[in-house]
Structures are given as C-alpha cells and as structure tokens.
C-alpha cells in the first residue's frame, strides 16, 4: 500500500509518497510502523513520547478516518496530514 504525506510531514520523510509492504493480516498501525521504519526521520514528528500518533497528525485510509487497529490491504492508500496555518 502507499502512504501519502502532506506539508511538513512530507518534508520530515523526504518524500511525498512512500510504498510499504506489510503482512496480509496487518493493521493500519503496522503500516504506520513500516512507514516509520522506512522513514525514521518522520518518527519524532508523527509520534508523541508515548509512541502514539500526535494529536495534530491526521491519518486516513482511502479518505476515511480509521483507528490504528483497522485492517489494511494491498492497494489501500493511507494518508498522514497536519493542519497548516499560513495565510
């Protein structure tokens, strides 16, 4: 599946799209872990001290809000985006 990253999250990762491979029964959380393993510089920006997704980082699967334990399948598109504030 593919991750799409927005704004400063893409900058932290150094890429706007990142493809990851996970097992058939994997969760969104596993796919996130695979993303952070591939792009370690993103970890501190995306997760808080407790290893949870930061409150200002949104996660979507195929355009819908999901929990970390939701399942993922090949072909899913996952997105991580923060609010931006420039005017």
């Amino acid at each position, binding site marked *: 599946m593919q991750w799409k990253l927005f704004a400063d999250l893409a900058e932290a990762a150094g890429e706007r799209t990142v493809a990851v491979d996970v097992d058939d029964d994997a969760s969104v959380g596993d796919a996130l872990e695979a993303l952070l393993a591939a792009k370690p510089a993103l970890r501190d920006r995306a997760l808080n001290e407790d290893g949870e997704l930061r409150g200002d980082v949104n996660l979507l699967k195929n355009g819908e809000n999901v929990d970390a334990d939701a399942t993922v399948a090949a072909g899913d598109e996952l997105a991580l985006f923060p609010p931006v504030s*420039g*005017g």
Partner: protein
Amino acid sequence: MSDLSLDATQLDRYSRHIILDDVGPEGQKRLLEGSALVVGAGGLGAPVIQYLAAAGVGRLGIVDDDVVERSNLQRQVIHRDADVGRPKAESAEEFVADLNPDIEVEAMERRIAPEEARNLVADYDVVVDCTDNFPTRYMLNDACQIEGVPLCHGAIYKFEGQITTLSPDGPCYRCLFPEAPEPGTVPDCATTGVLGVLPGTVGCLQATEAVKVLLGLGETLTGRLLFYDARELSFETVPYQRNPDCPVCGDDGIDDLAGVDYDGGCGVASD
C-alpha cells in the same frame, strides 16, 4: 419584482451575474444585502476581498492588525508598493472603495479578542478565515459554531493549501483537527517561504465558497477537506465526519469561549 431595487449602474456592473439563471437579479440582490467578515487581509484575504467586493457583497468587515511590508507584495495583491507601512485593514478598505462604491467596509485594525469574537461573527452572514495563526483559527471556528455562522476556511504551507467550509450543523474544524500543533512547531510563511500565487488560488476557492453560501447555491465543502498541491497541480478531496464528542460542536459542546486557552494550544477546559 426585486430587480427593481437594482439601479441602472448596478444592472450594468453585475449584468454577468444577473443573466446567470442560478443567480439572476434575486441572487445579486442577496449578495448586495449580504455581509462577510474577512479575517486577515494578507495572502488569502487579498483575493477574497477582491472577489467579494467585485461580486457586490454589500457589507465587508476586514480585520487585520498588521501593517503592509514590502515582503508581502509578492502575494498580497490588494496592497501596493506605496502602501508599505500602512495598516493592512486601511489599505484593504481603500482598495475596495476604489473597486466598487456599492460596498460598505468596516475596517478593524486589531487582532480579534476572545471576548468580542462571538458578537463580531454574529454580525455577518458568513466569515472567511484568512488568518495566519492557529489561535485565531480555532477561535473563529468556536465562535462561528456557537453563533451558527458559516466559516470558509483556507490555510497554506509553501506549495500546498487546505480548504473546507464549516457549517453551523458541523462538522467543525475541531472535528477535523482536534488539537492545534504545539505553538512554534508549524512554521509560518515568513520562516518557510510561500509560492506567491498559492494564496491566490486558495483564497479564490474560499471566495467561491463564501459566494455560494450567500447565494445558497450548489454544494459547499461542508464535511470535505480539499487539498491543493501547486507543484503537482493536483486537487484531492477527503470526507470527514462530525465528532459526537467534539468539545465545541459535539453533544455537550461549549456555549461560550471563556474556558478555551487560545494562547496555549487552544484546548477546551472540561467542566
């Protein structure tokens, strides 16, 4: 017939609206009798003010506490070289007066305080969020939700924009982004730079939404967040839902702004 209230100059000025079936003289009259509060007269506010004034939105409130700087002129297209050093609210007011004498402008040279936010937004039919900071964005969301005023949101980062419309029935900005980033973590345009034409595109989309709200026309971006990427020239829309536990528009949402810490992360105090 309501079109009798448009004078000959107005029939001429707004003729391309008036001949549109979905606007017509009634729609134009609605715009002329309508009002919009534009918060921020910078990169986003410039095209919003231009198009709402040109469209004949009869009363425009313009709020900004900054003065025009030369580095603004690369994107803030209502201000001119000669305006450097002047308050943006004043420069914007003059721009509107020169463009369209039909428009009554209320220029406010200040930053909106939480104590006045609800009364201020309640005085307009629609609010357009063209600010450059999270505290004011969350404050506008909260005030507009409580007062039942639609809010057209736009925000930019370097080459990217986010646009959505927050309607009185929700979902609201806090349903989409429950927490503001920690102060200082998301850099502003002065730090990161911004493609000059980017706020033009994003502001025009906000102005489109505001005009649609005033006309009651079409489908707004309520419950949808539009991402714009200028580098790829791509638009992507994702849906989002109302959060029943939202501290503002949820079932037990707040009904005043007194308990919100806008200076320290915009959190809502729980009772």
